């Protein structure tokens, strides 16, 4: 998805969401609830229930952050954004302006710029919920602080960029669980009504036993920023975060993790091993790859072919396919038998004109926040951090397999001490030497990525 499309989408969501919030919030599909719960599935909601006012702080006020904040207030009644934190003042200003335009002003004294802004925000006494929407490099520290200060959490995928971060997330998730803090993650598909219905079909044996899978996120090139005069190394890299592995985790984490997460969800476990390829030839900035092709081995002969590419004018598409002994599915809305006849199709609701739509009424971005608010207000506990951390780790395992050219086992990556960040987060020159990974060389398994020469 190009950035421009996403922005348009957010506008649409905002308008739709606000109109829903003003209407009476209803929990629909009450009858399905127990079944969803038994299968560990989120409830399908048309709005979050009424309840005590919830005040949220947004950490990471860029495009996705501002979008997530709007999604939050769109999820139901009495939901407010009262504080912002971001590394950059200009991102805070833009986000505040946006909220001011909805007539929802955010007080200036509740806005905190800089690397430690998140700490100041979480120290505010009135915050119930935090939205963690920075580049994933920072997520583990932010999540730990949120749990330490008793906040419910929404956080975007991926949850970290390296195994040290993943273990931090899992530990914090267990701490959150112990004291009843709800955590929802931005996996989208796990909250989509159509995916959930398809999952139930597969669980009921609609495709028999799962034998193999494929997952793909092939798209045009994504955004990048070239260095501007006056930017020091750190400022440049964070403004161009989507192109540096230590900040982004590479696009196998940033986007393809959605597909990988679906495969893990449907198969019901995590892969034992990964072998794969990747390479880079058209990127202009940063140190990441243009494409990955990974074989995830789930044991017992079950494999998933995972591919992702960011190159223009190619056969681009995103999605998943899962094969079984009696049929196959796209995981989203359709099940075929082995002769390619459609066995089952998810029925989307009709639009105002009575025509069947091709997506759910509530976008998954908003459904996630409805789920979080529902959990907080009704006491139906939710904590998705560990499962999303493990899907992120699956992507890290694939990335490491491609970067190194080696077979990487689950145990190895789970226990790895790979820690990609610089030792200190501060503006100024960064003492990291960068180098695009070359398979067959052991660089990536060591503690720091080696970046050489000027950072571009």
């Amino acid at each position, binding site marked *: 998805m190009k950035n421009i499309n996403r922005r348009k989408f957010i506008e649409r969501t905002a308008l739709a969401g606000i109109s829903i919030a003003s209407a009476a919030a209803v929990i629909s599909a009450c009858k399905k609830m127990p079944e969803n719960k038994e299968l560990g599935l989120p409830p399908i909601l048309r709005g979050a229930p009424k309840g005590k006012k919830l005040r949220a702080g947004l950490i990471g006020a860029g495009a996705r952050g501002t979008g997530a904040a709007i999604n939050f207030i769109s999820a139901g009644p009495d939901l407010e954004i009262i504080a912002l934190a971001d590394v950059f003042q200009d991102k805070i200003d833009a986000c505040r302006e946006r909220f001011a335009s909805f007539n929802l002003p955010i007080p200036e004294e509740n806005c905190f710029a800089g690397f430690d802004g998140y700490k100041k925000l979480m120290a505010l006494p009135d915050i119930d919920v935090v939205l963690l929407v920075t580049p994933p490099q920072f997520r583990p520290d932010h999540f730990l602080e949120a749990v330490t200060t008793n906040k419910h959490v929404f956080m975007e995928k991926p949850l970290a960029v390296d195994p040290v971060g993943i273990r931090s997330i899992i530990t914090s998730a267990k*701490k959150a669980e112990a004291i009843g803090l709800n955590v929802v993650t931005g996996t989208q598909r796990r909250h989509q009504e159509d995916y959930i219905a398809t999952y139930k079909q597969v669980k009921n044996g609609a495709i028999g036993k799962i034998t193999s899978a494929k997952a793909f996120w092939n798209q045009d090139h994504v955004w990048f920023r070239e260095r501007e005069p006056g930017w020091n190394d750190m400022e440049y890299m964070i403004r161009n975060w989507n192109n540096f592995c230590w900040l982004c985790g590479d696009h196998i984490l940033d986007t393809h993790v959605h597909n990988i997460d679906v495969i893990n969800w449907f198969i019901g476990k995590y892969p034992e091993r990964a072998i794969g390829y990747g390479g880079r030839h058209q990127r202009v900035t940063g140190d990441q790859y243009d494409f990955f092709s990974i074989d995830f081995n789930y044991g017992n002969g079950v494999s998933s072919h995972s591919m992702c590419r960011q190159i223009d004018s190619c056969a681009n598409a995103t999605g998943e396919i899962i094969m079984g002994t009696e049929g196959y599915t796209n995981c989203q809305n359709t099940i075929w038998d082995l002769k390619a006849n459609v066995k089952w199709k998810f029925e989307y609701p009709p639009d105002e004109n009575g025509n069947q739509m091709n997506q759910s009424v509530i976008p998954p971005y908003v459904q996630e926040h409805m789920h979080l608010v529902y959990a907080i207000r009704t006491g139906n506990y939710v904590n998705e951090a560990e499962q999303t951390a493990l899907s992120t780790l699956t992507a890290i395992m694939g990335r490491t397999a491609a970067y190194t050219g080696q077979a990487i086992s689950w145990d190895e990556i789970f226990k790895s001490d790979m820690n990609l960040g610089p030792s200190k987060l501060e503006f100024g020159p960064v003492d990291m030497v960068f180098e695009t990974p070359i398979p067959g060389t052991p660089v990536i398994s060591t503690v720091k990525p080696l970046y050489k020469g000027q950072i571009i």
Partner: protein
Amino acid sequence: MSCHIHPHADNSWKFSTHYNNSSGTIVHCVECHLPPEGHGYLFAKAKHGLKDAYGYYIKDSAKIDWQKKKLLENAITLVYENSCIDCHQNLFPVTLSVNGGNAHLFYVTSKEPLSCINCHLNVGHYDKNAVLHEHDSSFGVIITSDKPPFIESAEVTEFRDFTETIPGTTVSFEMAALPGGTFYMGSPKDEPLRDDDEGPVREVKLSQFWIGKTEVTWDEYMAFFRATSSQGRTEDQVVISKNADAISGATPPWGAPDQGWGKGSRPAITMSWHAANIYCQWLSKVTGKKYRLPTEAEWEYACRAETKTPYFFAGDPRKFTSESFLRKLLGPDTTTIASYIIYNKNSGAMTAEPFMVKVNPFGLKNTSGNVAEFCSDLYSEEYYKTDSLRTNPKGPARGLEHVIRGGSFKSDARDVRSAARDYTRTKEWLVTDPQMPKSIWWYSDCIDVGFRIVCEVDSSLLK
């Protein structure tokens, strides 16, 4: 209330966090030493109750080796995991540190059996020497000696005993010259209490070599640690690929590797086989000689010192052991063996300094007992049966673990016989290391293995 016969345990309990804590909660004996109800409570109560009553009426409390009971392998039979969990239901409190988080994550995902007291050994009975698991980065930083350091290593021009001096330090140690020769390696079938892997007896020929008169001491090992230690983690492959000009040494250990028993001339312990091997490389570099770990054959040759008996002194393992039914009744004979060997009957469950024992006929101390010693050979149970090399054998080509020899302060008399063999247990010895991946330099769960070094006789050395 004291549990019958445990006055000593009662005191250490009152100093522990299960009695002396800020919340004022007191956790009583049976809350840890019996399982919770529904988990075999009655059976365990009957079992321990009978044992306790027996001890109370028959045994003398002052003669019970309490220190030994506190060793992990013994303590684990006296504390119930379910009882720990019954109270400590939240393994992830918000205040848990990063390392604590890693360790508990390891505990909840471990496929191997793992007990709370693997790490939290002293929480029920206070031990002033106990150190919690944390990176001890101040380890080895303080240099206490004010003697002038040696400038050069020992110059060796003939094959005789010499005193090595480590340049740049105040540390020296004694090396014994052992003449080459032929000996019978292993134990004959009629040797009491032997194991199968010790046979058949083979006639083995060895060239002359020097060997340390004692096990490598903390003073010696700390010289290496100070010269080479790195604060960060160092990957195995990096160490190996580096040449001798830049040896990367151990990372700081977790807790106190000397177990609070003191360093000095006590044998260095808890370092990994890999670390011992790198120590030899470093020592070779700074002294200009060829130091290495002994082969298994060299080790046994040095230990036997031309004897063919079970020990390098006269005596019958059957009389020294405390494991047979007869000896449990009559008590083991400790008179001769206790003057040569530090083993489970005289060690007080810790290492000893070399002056505590007499030398063997080659002038070596603690080959048997005190700490088990690493050899350079890989271990194979079948090696003696299959090997055909009879001159300077170096062990099997393949294997997973290395040979350790001599038994330790924890061993029964049977396991400190000259022919007794054992091997490293890398996985078990790293069970509670909270780091991921685990240290290649320190074993977190092995406190009774060290090493002794050999110096090769290089013709260029002897002019």
